[in-house]
Structure formats: C-alpha cells, structure tokens
C-alpha cells in the first residue's frame, strides 16, 4: 500500500468500484465510553451490586483482617490501646495442652463425622430417587435435623443422652444389656462424650448431604444406567462403576461443605458438653469462644480461631478447582 500513499485522495483518482462516491459524512462526536450502551450497562451493573459487595466487605472482609490484627496483639475486652506482641499469643497457645487437645479433637470430630455423613447420605439417596407413596412424608422427616435450629436439636439430644433419664439407656437396661444405674454416661465419659458429639453432628448434617447427593444422582441421564444394563452390568457393577463415579463431583461438593460446617462449628459442642468433660470434647471454635468471649481475652481467642483458616483455604482451593474443572465439560 506504500505506493498508494502518494496518490491524491480526490474522488476521481479512486477506482470506481461500486458506483459514484458518497458525500463525506458529518463529523461524529467522540462519545465517552461511560455514555455508550455497553458503558451504561456496565455502570448500572456495578451500581446494582456495589451495596451488597460493600456490606460484605465491611462485615466480613474487615473483621477477617481484624482477626489477624488482634491475634498479634494483647487486646482484651477492657483494653484501651493496642500493643503489638508479635507471635506471643501463638507461642502460648501452642504450648497449651487445652489447645493441643482441641486441635486434635477438631480433626477427629470432622473426619469421623464426615465419613459417617457421606456413607449414610449416599446410601439414603438411592432409594429416594424414585417416586414412591409416602416420599413427601419421608422427606419431611429426614429433613428435620437440618431445618430445626442446631441448638434446639442439640438440646433434644441432651435430653435423650441424659445421664439419668436417657431413653437409650432405658432401652438398653430393658434389654438386659446393662444393669440399672450402670448404663453408659453418654455425656459424662470422655470417649463416650466425643462419640455423642460426633453422633449429633452427623445427625444434623445427614439431611443436607443427602439432598446434595440426591441432586447429583438425579442428574445422571437415565439412558446411561440403561445402557449399562443392556451391556450386561448387574446391580453392584452399575453402582460402583457407573453411578458412583458419575456422582463423584457432587459427592466432593458435599464433603467440602461438610468439612467447613463441622470444623468451624461450636454449637453442638457448646450445648451438649460445653467442651467437657475435662476438655475431651473441646474443639477449636468452642475454645476460641470460651477464651475470647467468655474469658475476655480477645487476642488469644482470635489467635485460636485463626487456626481455622488453613482448613478454609484448603477447602476453598479444592472447591474452586472443581468448579473450574466442571466448566470444561
């Protein structure tokens, strides 16, 4: 095109391709981007979500940062100023046997209950897939633990597990498995207390997990298990080689949610055992509560609760990775 540059740009010099040349158009003013339709739409969008984002930033983002800030200080409930103490809080926490016990308990609590929840809800999801008479009622009953406020369900269990009047113990005694007054103290003995707390948490999460897994199960197109049947697969092969592998992504989602809800939960422990007996059921969040809120030591409490963060980050990472992978499909 360099050779063309020297030609005069008059109408006569240009080749007559599609008829006589058009008259020159009036100068169009340059419109600022924010007034173009795309710009206006984007601004509207930002305006529409800004309040929500600001709210979340203020009430989650800022406190999140503050948690770190407090953990590195010696702030207590009555404190006036702010003193940086570096890693002092963390040092004293890590040396504390209470903390170490709570950390171990948190893991035991989470891992055992999640295993029970996933296995249980997967088993439960299968029969719920088909419509059958009474399914509505069954669904209502199964959802109760999840819908009822956690603390109220836990109190209900506290009554069921009461040291003297436990209905479970009454049944055990009636079946002559135990002598009266020697039945297990569900909330009074360390190992049993841990088992009870795990039981209640499992009970609470099972419905939620079942709903998620059931959704994954019903998302499997009907023709695939049928093709497997035609191909010769029996019940167990269909289950383990077709249904479960295809449900794996959704099972992952349920597990990740479950881990977060369990690891960061303090309500079940607080209501059932208040961390006892002798810290045997204490978990990180409840310890943070007792230290920071009831004990008034805000900085120590914040430091303890910060130990939740690595788990949160790990889970978030895995959830994002899965969300990204499923987009590729």
């Amino acid at each position, binding site marked *: 095109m360099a050779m063309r540059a020297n030609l005069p740009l008059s109408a006569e010099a240009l080749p007559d391709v599609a008829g006589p040349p058009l008259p020159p158009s009036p100068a169009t003013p340059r419109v600022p981007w924010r007034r173009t339709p795309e710009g206006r739409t984007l601004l509207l969008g930002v305006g529409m979500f800004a309040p929500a984002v600001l709210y979340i930033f203020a009430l989650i983002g800022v406190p999140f940062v503050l948690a770190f800030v407090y953990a590195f200080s010696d702030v207590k409930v009555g404190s006036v100023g702010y003193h940086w103490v570096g890693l002092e809080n963390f040092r004293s926490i890590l040396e504390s046997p209470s903390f170490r016990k709570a950390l171990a308990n948190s893991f035991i609590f989470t891992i055992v209950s999640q295993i029970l929840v996933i296995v249980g809800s997967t088993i439960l999801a299968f029969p719920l897939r088909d419509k*059958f008479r009474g399914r*509505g009622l069954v669904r209502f009953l199964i959802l109760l633990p999840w819908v*009822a406020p956690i603390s*109220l369900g836990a*109190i209900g269990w506290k009554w069921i597990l009461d040291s003297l009047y436990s209905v479970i113990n009454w049944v055990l005694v009636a079946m002559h498995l135990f002598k009266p007054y020697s039945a297990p103290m569900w909330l009074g003995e360390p190992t049993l207390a841990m088992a009870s707390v795990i039981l209640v948490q499992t009970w609470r999460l099972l419905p939620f997990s079942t709903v998620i897994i059931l959704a994954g199960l019903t998302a499997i197109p009907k023709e695939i298990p049928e093709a497997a049947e035609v191909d010769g697969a029996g019940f167990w092969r269909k289950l383990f080689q077709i249904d479960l592998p295809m449900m794996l992504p959704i099972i992952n989602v349920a597990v990740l949610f479950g881990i977060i809800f369990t690891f*960061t939960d*303090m309500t079940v422990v*607080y209501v059932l055992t208040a961390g006892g007996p002798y810290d045997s059921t204490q978990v990180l969040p409840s310890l943070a509560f007792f230290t920071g809120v009831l004990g008034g030591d*805000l900085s120590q409490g914040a430091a303890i609760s910060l130990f939740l963060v690595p788990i949160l980050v790990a889970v978030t990472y895995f959830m994002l990775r899965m969300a990204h992978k499923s987009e590729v499909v």
Partner: protein
Amino acid sequence: MQGGAARTVRYTIARWIVVGIFSVLLAFPFYWMLITTFKQTADLYTLENNPFIFNMPPTLDHLRLLFGQTRYLVWVGNTALVGVIVVGITLLLALPAAYALTRLTGKWGENMGIGIFLTYLVPPTLLFIPLSRVVALLGLQDTIWSVVLVYPSFTIPFSIWLLMGFFKSIPRELEDAAMVDGLTRLGAFVKLVVPISISGILTVVIFTFTLVTQEFVYALTFISTESSQMLSVGVPTFLVRGDVYYWGSLMAACLIASVPIAILYNLFLDRFIAGFTVGAIK
C-alpha cells in the same frame, strides 16, 4: 414369580428398610420432644416407667410454664422481628446484585459471584471476636440490632448465589424482547425479571428466614440480656434454672420452634434444589 418381578419386590423391601431406618433415626429426637412435652414431670423422672408410653395422663403444664413463666414468646418475637428485617435488607441488596452479576457484567461478574459465595464459607467462629468489638463500638451491644446488622453478612452471599441460579434459568431473549419493546435495562429488571422470579424470591425469603432462626454464635456473643435474646440461644440458656433443666418446657420450646419452620422449608425445597443444581452442576 418371574425373575424381573421378584427383583422388584426385593428392591422395594430393601428400599423400605433403608428409608425406614434413616427416617426413624433422623426424626426420633422430635418425636421424643413431642412425647416429653405432654408427659407429667413425675412420669418423666420415674426411672422404672416405660418412657415410650404415658404412664400418667398427659398434661399441658409444661406448655403453661413455657408460655406463662418464661420469656419464650419474647424470644420468638425477637427472632421473628429480626427475621423480617434481615430478609428485607437481604432482598434489597441481593436481588440487584444477583441480577447484575448474572446479566450485566460478563465473565468477571461470574467470577465475582463465585467470590461472593465463598465469603459464605467464612465462619462466624472466626469473625465473632472482632465483630464483638465492632458491635460494642457502635453501641449495639446487647440489643437485637447487633444481629440485625451482622446477619446480612451471611444471608446476602447465600441469597446472591441462590438468586444467580434462578436468574440464569431465565432466557436472555425475554429481556431483550422487553428492551426492544421500549423498557430500559433497569425497567426490564423491575417489571419483568422480578415478577417472573417470584417463586425463586420466595424461596430465598424462606431460606434466609431459616438461616436467621438457626443462627447461634453471633446471638450468643453479642446479646446477654434475656429479654433481648433470640430463640435459638434463649432456649438452651435461660430455660435452665441453676443446674436444673426443665426438660418438659425445654422440649416444648424446641418442638414449637422447629416444626413450623420445617413445614415451610419443605414446601420450597424443590425450588431450592432447582436453583442449586443450575449453579453447581453443569
């Protein structure tokens, strides 16, 4: 019997066994609450009595105690009031946000939506200590306004995520047609999208309300006075006199609080699942 028919019978029996066991295990505590509510105290505390039957005639005493001599109704009122206000705040902020992130902001809007949802996973047990300070500084300590302020921090992300799922299922062409017919974007949102999504919005309302009623940690942390407390904290805390648990009234309190919410929840569960699966499963 033909092979196929025999298998179906076996499946049906197995199904009823599995479903039956789980239903009993999961619902039993509520059944237990029901029985305990109406059993006389003497009947409850006599070890030899069969707990599954009424050995003495049923009574309304526990209910009378609960409604007459405790602050139960105050807590119910507080929770209801907080619920309504928080639902209002949530809808006000989450509806436009969800719409904007679904329609108006393209790819980075989607990612922002995911980011917002992730904030739902930040637990109260991490934020409650700093927030208690913030609440104290604002002078909202020990009032229901503390939780009115803080609860939207988790109901908004949850609602945005749910609503995004609903909005995604509305075909774009509907809004395009409305704009060709003369509505602005905002007008299309208000006059078209919102009315179409009423069932989705109702679902969000119910779920937000249940999130409020279930919340424990913030209410426990920010509020200490009995008359300002919420239901889920008041019941386990104040229905205990000294070391004595008034189990009859306690169980009544739990039952009354749980069942109506459960009924409402069940009515909207299918819509929730529909919105959930749009988002989570491609």
